[in-house]
């Protein structure tokens, strides 16, 4: 097994765990955490494909990962802000109860 395949396997596992968490957990905070897990799985893929790709000397993969982490941080801030404002409004973080935007 090449090192790249090992990284990809770990990343896939990480993504699956994140996806399962995002789809099943009821706590909005935990859903956000699961989303972070999936993002990090993606970041791990980026780094792995850069490190074992055709041009490891260019810093493209690293740059991509840093951008992604920055965007994820911003996204987590917005998500947490939303969760806090909902909590203030509805006194719960259960996303199954947050169904007022239905068609």
């Amino acid at each position, binding site marked *: 097994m090449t090192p790249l395949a090992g990284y990809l396997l770990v990343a896939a596992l990480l993504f699956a765990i994140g996806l399962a968490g*995002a789809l099943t957990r009821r706590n909005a905070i935990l859903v956000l955490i699961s989303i972070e897990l999936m993002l990090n799985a993606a970041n791990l893929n980026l780094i792995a494909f850069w490190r074992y790709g055709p041009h490891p000397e260019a810093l493209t993969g690293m740059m991509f990962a840093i951008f992604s982490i920055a965007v994820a941080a911003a996204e987590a801030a917005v998500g947490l802000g939303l969760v806090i404002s909902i909590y203030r409004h509805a006194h719960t973080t259960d996303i199954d109860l947050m169904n007022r935007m239905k068609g």
Partner: protein
Amino acid sequence: MQETISFTPQLAASPIAEILWLIPAVPMVASGVIALLKQPKRRTAATLAIGSLSFSLLLALIAFVHVLGEWAHGGGIRETVNFTWIQVGSSHVDLGWVLDPLAAVMLVMVAFVGLLIFIYSTGYMEHDENYTRFFCFLSLFAGAMLGVVISNSLLLLFMCWELVGLTSYLLIGFWYQKPAAAAAAKKAFMTTRVGDVFFLLGIVWFFAQTGTLLFYNSGAGSLEPAALATLLAQHGALGLTAAGAIGLLIFAGAAGKSGQFPLHVWLPDAMEGPTPVSALIHAATMVAAGVYLIARVYPLMQAGALTGGTTTALTVVTWVGAFTAVFAALIAVAQNDIKRILAYSTVSQLGYMMAGLGMGGVAVGMFHLITHAFFKALLFLGAGSVIHGCHEEQDVRRMGGLRSDMPLTFVTYAIGMLALCGFPLLFSGFWSKDGILEAAQHWSVAKAPFYMLVFGALLTAFYMTRQVGYVFFGYWRGHKPAHESPAVMTVPLAILAFFAMALGVIGTPAWPWFRAFLDGRALAFHMDGFAEPGLIALMGGSTAVVFLGLGLGWWLYGGQAPKPEQPDVLEKAVPVPWVWLHNRLYVDEFYGVTVIAFYEWWGRVADWLDRRVWGGAVTGVAWLFRGWAQLNRFLDTNWVDGGFDKGCEELATGGGLLARVQSGRVQTYLRLLALAVVALVAILIWSSRA
């Protein structure tokens, strides 16, 4: 009979001929203006009508003097002014007017008699509330009649002819509240229409053959030799030439208008109109329009005649005229209504004119037309004066002894009556009637018309004496005493009486001014005009006949007219013929059981066809479409509407189902997204493997 006279064609019309159209136009315009006036504007209406007709008379006199002047310079003139009315492709319809001796004489007569009657009407119609309307119609009539006279086109003549018929209808029915007047108006209109249909047929045929309806158009007119020659070459029906057939068709129109048998029935009934109308329209002018028409198209009627011979058309004109003359005179003997006696007399005299035209030519017939216009207008106006004085009484049996109550009316009426009878020498009727009798005596075809006309003269003298005996002699048999009419009515009587006597001067055998003027020949005074063989004998004979008639009438009716309840003297003597004559020889009844019965039957048939056949077909189609509509409605409500409703229902259900997916739960969406991604990936993998 008379030799063909050539009139010098005038290329450039004189100024008076150019403005000849004003003569009919001015009264017509006046009529239009009067029509716009309010009912109480009586004085304005009468002034407009009389003023416009005076203007026409003035122009007519100028035209007459002009024609007279040209005649004095030798030969007759005929000035025409023509213009194109309608142009369709290469064919065109021309209209125009003509100034020749015939038109000039007629213009003066119509305008002059018309003016006198207008003035008389201001007195006669004084108490009528529709005075304004009356003058509107009278003016229109005068305009149309003058239009008939000056027309140089058969079409223009026909238009004015119909206008004249319309005003006749309007004026007979002037007192439309009276059912008899309304019925008489309708009868007059429809009876003359019968003649006019034939007339129109003649016009169309004429146009088809000659390509023009202008009478005179410097060689190209329809009455000029070139056109007549083509007409003579054509064969019409029943062995007639086209000229003869067209002449007979036109004569049918003239017979309708001029009350010739068998279309005379409307004229006596037309007396339901106001008396000035009877005088102007149904005695002096309109009924003479038929005679004038024949005189106008005389070249056509005469076309093809050999020297001294006659044509079929003229022979028919003669026989119809002579028969009508006797027929109507017979009926006049047994009438009791003062105006009806005069009406039958008019029919009879029109018969004389027609016979005169047929046997003696234009001058003979036209001379009687002119003299008759004056004395018959006089008689009618006199009758109007009598009716007015006797408080609207028209039955001669309820009058009597009026010679002392109404002396002016009596004297003028007596003059008119003697002129009508043909009293020798002094009165115009004698000369004009003798002209006709003389022509009849020399007629080459048959002698019967001569004897018929002599018998008619006897009857004329008789029935007029009877009437005068009833009205003016004997004793007063009415209710309220009679009174003389105002001056506005008696002065026209006096003027007409003067002309009833004086006009004879222009047509004596010694000085045949009228004939020479109409024919455009030189005139000389020949005392030996009387020396023509047989003429003195004829005049003596006709005088004897007149005196016989007068004597008979006086013997039976002079001063001893019976009371209304008692039977007439003649009725006691010869009851059966009297009843026949009194009932107008049952012509109306005959039409009642033939023509009118046929039309009633035909009306019923048409009504039945309308209701059952055409109505049934229409109802059937309507049912068909109603059924079709019901079917459409059923399909609409059940299929189209049902299908649509079902579709909408399904869409709503589908929408509901989809709406349930959007539950608002974020995780549901995410699951669906994840499933979709999985499916997408699966499809991608599966398709890349293939």
